[in-house]
C-alpha cells in the first residue's frame, strides 16, 4: 500500500506543479492588465507605472512566478489587486459553498440514479427501463441555466418554500442553510443523474449475468440481499470513476448555478477575477480547483483498490 500512496504523491506534486505553471502563463497571456481595471478611464501612463510597481507586476514573469510559489509555501496565496481581499479569505467564502453544493447535488444524483439503475437492470428493455432511459436523456438535454430558473420560478417565487438566491452559512442554522442550497443542488444534480444512471445500469447488467449471481440464488438468498451485498460492489467501479471526474470538474463547473443563485463559489470568483485581470486570485482559484480535482480522483483510485481486491496488487 505504501508504494501505491508514494507513487500517487509524486504524481500529485508533478501534476500540481504543471497546473500552477499552466494557470500562471495562461492568465498572463490575457490582453490588458489589472491597472486598467483599477484605474479605469483615469489610467494615465504615470498612474499606471506607479500602480504596476506597487503591485510588483513590473518584474519579469519568472520572478513573479517565483515569488508566487514561494508565497504559497508560506501559506500566503496573495491578495486581490482590486478588493485588497486575500485569496485565502476569498477561498474561505468560496470553498464551503462549493463543497456543500457538490456534496448535496451528488448525493441527490446518486439517491435517484442508483435505485433507477437497479430496477432498470433487473428488467432490461422492459417498461421501466425504457421510461427511465428516455427520461434521463430529457434531463441531459435540459441545461442547468434552464433548470435553475424553472426551479426558482416554481419553488421560490410561486411556492415561497426556499430563497431564490443567496447562501445562508451553516452558522445561521442548518434549516436556512439547506434551504438556500437545495435548488442549486437540484439544478446541478440533474446533469449528473444521467451519467451515473447510464454507467451503473451498464455495469449492473454485466454483473447480473455472472455465474456467482445464479450461485447466490441457488443458496435461496433474497433478490434484495443479492443486489445489495453481491451485485452492487462489483458494479460500482465505473460509477465511482464517473463520480470522481464529475465532482472534480464541478469545483469550477458550477459557475452557471453560482451566477444564477448568486453564490460566490470558486467558479464565480474565478470568472470575476479573469474579467478583472486579478492575476493572483485567478492563479489561486485555478490552482485550488485543480488540486481539489486531483485529490478527489486520487481518493477515488484508492477507493477502487479497496473495493476491488483483485486490483490491489497493481
Amino acid at each position, binding site marked *: 500500500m505504501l508504494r501505491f500512496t508514494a507513487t500517487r504523491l509524486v504524481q500529485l506534486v508533478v501534476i500540481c506543479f504543471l497546473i500552477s505553471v499552466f494557470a500562471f502563463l495562461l492568465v498572463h497571456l490575457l490582453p490588458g492588465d489589472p491597472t486598467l481595471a483599477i484605474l479605469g478611464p483615469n489610467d494615465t501612463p504615470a498612474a499606471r507605472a506607479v500602480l504596476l510597481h506597487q503591485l510588483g507586476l513590473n518584474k519579469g514573469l519568472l520572478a513573479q512566478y517565483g515569488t508566487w510559489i514561494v508565497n504559497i509555501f508560506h501559506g500566503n496565496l496573495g491578495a486581490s489587486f482590486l478588493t485588497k481581499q486575500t485569496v485565502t479569505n476569498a477561498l474561505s467564502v468560496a470553498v464551503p459553498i462549493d463543497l456543500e453544493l457538490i456534496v448535496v447535488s451528488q448525493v441527490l444524483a446518486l439517491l435517484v440514479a442508483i435505485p433507477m439503475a437497479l430496477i432498470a437492470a433487473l428488467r432490461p428493455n422492459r417498461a421501466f427501463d425504457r421510461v427511465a432511459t428516455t427520461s434521463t436523456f430529457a434531463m441531459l438535454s435540459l441545461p442547468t441555466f434552464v433548470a435553475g430558473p424553472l426551479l426558482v420560478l416554481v419553488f421560490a417565487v410561486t411556492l415561497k418554500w426556499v430563497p431564490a438566491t443567496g447562501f445562508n452559512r451553516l452558522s445561521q442554522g442548518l434549516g436556512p442553510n439547506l434551504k438556500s442550497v437545495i435548488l442549486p443542488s437540484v439544478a446541478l444534480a440533474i446533469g449528473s443523474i444521467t451519467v451515473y444512471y447510464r454507467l451503473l445500469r451498464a455495469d449492473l447488467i454485466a454483473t447480473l449475468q455472472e455465474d456467482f449471481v445464479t450461485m447466490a440464488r441457488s443458496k435461496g438468498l433474497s433478490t434484495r440481499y443479492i443486489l445489495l451485498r453481491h451485485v452492487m460492489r462489483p458494479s460500482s467501479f465505473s460509477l465511482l470513476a464517473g463520480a470522481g471526474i464529475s465532482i472534480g470538474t464541478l469545483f469550477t463547473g458550477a459557475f452557471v448555478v453560482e451566477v444564477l443563485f*448568486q453564490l460566490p463559489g470558486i467558479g464565480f470568483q474565478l470568472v*470575476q477575477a479573469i474579467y478583472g485581470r486579478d492575476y493572483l486570485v485567478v492563479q489561486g482559484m485555478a490552482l485550488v480547483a485543480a488540486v481539489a480535482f486531483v485529490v478527489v480522483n486520487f481518493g477515488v483510485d484508492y477507493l477502487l483498490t479497496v473495493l476491488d481486491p483483485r486490483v490491489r496488487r497493481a
Partner: protein
Amino acid sequence: MADSADRYDRRAFLTRGATTAAAVGLAGVGLPSLLAACGSGTTAPPHASSTPGIGIGTPKRGGTVTIGLNSEIDGFLPSASHFDNSGLTYANTIFDTLTVVGADGSAKPYLAQSVVPNTDMTVWTITLRPGVTFHDGSPLNADVLVANMQALQTSALTGQALRGVVDTVAKTGDLSVAVTCAEPIVAFPHYLATQVGYVIALAQLESQNSTKPIGTGPFSLVEWVPNDHLAVTRNHNYWRSGLPYLDGLTYRPISEDQSRENSLRSGTIDLMVTRDPDAIRDLRDNADYQLVLNPNVGQGDMDFVILNTSVAPTSDIVVRQALAHAINVDELVKLFGAGIAKPNLSLFPPGSPYRPADNGYPTYDLAKAKQLVAQAAPNHGGSIKISLATITDPRLLNEVQAIASMWGLAGIQTTVSEIEQVTFIDNLVTGQFQAYTDEMFGATDPDLNYVWLSPTTANGPIALNFARNKDDALETALQTGRTTSDQAVRAKAYQQVDKRLAQDLPYLWASLATWCSIGSNVVQNFNNLTLPDGSKALGFSNGVLDPTPVWRKD
C-alpha cells in the same frame, strides 16, 4: 462630477463587481440646481392610499431589512474605490455627504452646516456641523475634512477629475475649511453631494483600508463578504437624533436581473434596485409592491450608441448622420423598453430647463439615410462598414442586433460583436472602437458631465471624452454653463450644448435608463428622507438609495 458612466449589463457582477472601471470614479447624484420645472413624473400610478416609498402612520423602531442591489463594489475608500449606484448606496449607509440634493434640485447642507461661496464663487467655505463623531468615536473636525479632500486630490482614481474643480484646501477654523477653485464653479455644492462629498474617519483614511469603513453615517459595519452580503447595524449616537429606525440592514448584491426579481417575489429580499424594464412591467400593477421610478428632475442616465469621431468611417459627419437617420428609435425602444422606457433624443430629459424646444436631432428617415450612405460611400472604399459592439448582456445583445439590422436596411454593413468588460473600457478609453452601446450622463447638474463632454479632454492616447469630438462652440457653451451664476444664461448655454451635440452627432440617443427601486409593503418610507432644515430630499435617483428614513411595518 458626472454621474458614473456605469455599464448597464446583466453580467454586472462580472464587470462592475470587479472593475466598475467605467465610472470616472466620481459618481454624482444630486439635484438640479434650478427649481425643477417638473413635468409629469414617470412615477408609477399612485397606490390606493399612499405614494410609494412614503411611510404610512407612525414610524416603528427596530427590525431589519434586506436590500438587493444590482452590483457589488470593490471597496469603501472614496479616493480609491469605484462608487457606482450600489457603491453610493453603501456609502449613504455608512458615511454622510457634506451636502444632499433637495427635492427642489438644490444642494442643501447635510453633514456640513453651511457651504458659502465668496462673491465671484471662486472660494467656498464649508463649516461642519458641531458635535458629530465617527463610528470609532473620533470627532468630525476641519483637520479630518482637509485630510479627506487632499486624499481625493492626490488619488490616481479621482485626482484628474478634481483637477479642473478644486485647487487648494485650507483649514480656516476648528470646524471650517476654505476651498479655492481653479475658476468660478457655480455647481460646487453639487460636487459635495457626490463621491467627493463623503468624509471618512482618519483611522480608515491613513490606513487606506477599503474593507473596514468607519464613517459618521446612520449604520456601522458588521460584516462585508464580497458578492454575498454587507451587514450593518444601527449607529446609536447618529448626529440625526431619532434616526435610523431600523436595528440593522443587509445588502445582497444579485447581479442577475431575473434572480434579483425572483428574490424579491420570493421574499428573500424586501427591497431591490433594478433598471430592467421587464421587472418594472411585471410588478407595476402588483399591489404588494411599491415602485419608485427615477424622479423627472436633474439628468437621468441615457442609453445611447457612442461613435468614435476620430476614426474612419465614423469620423465622417455624413456617415454619422446616415447612422442617426437609419435608427428607428421608437421601434427600438418599443422592442426593449417593455413599454416602460421612453425614447429621448436629447442629453436632457423632457421638462428640463436645459432642453431646447427643438435641438435639431435627426429623426428616423430611411430614405434620407440611404441617400447619405450613397453620398458618403465613395470616399470610404465604396461601402460603409461599421463594427458595433456591446458587453455581454442579453438585452443589449438583442438591441445591438436590432440596430445592426436597421443599419443594414440603410445599406450599412454592420458586424456585431460581444466584448468583455475590461477590453470594452480599454477600447473606449484608448479610442479603439467605431460604435459601442453606452449608458451615462446621469447627474443632478449638467456641469458634472463637463469632463465627459469637453473637447479639452478629447485628445491624447487616453481621453475621458470617449467620442473625441472637438467642437469649439460646445466648449464655450460648457464654460459659460460652468461659470455663470445667472440661471437664464446657464439654461441657454446648456441648450446650446444639446444643439451642438445634435449637430455633431457623437452620441446617437435612444432612451432614458429605467432606474427603479421596488419594495414590498413590509418596507416603509424608503424614499422619504427629510433634510435637517425640514425640507424633503430628492430621494431615489439613478439607482442610489438612502436607507436612513426606512422602517419595517410588520
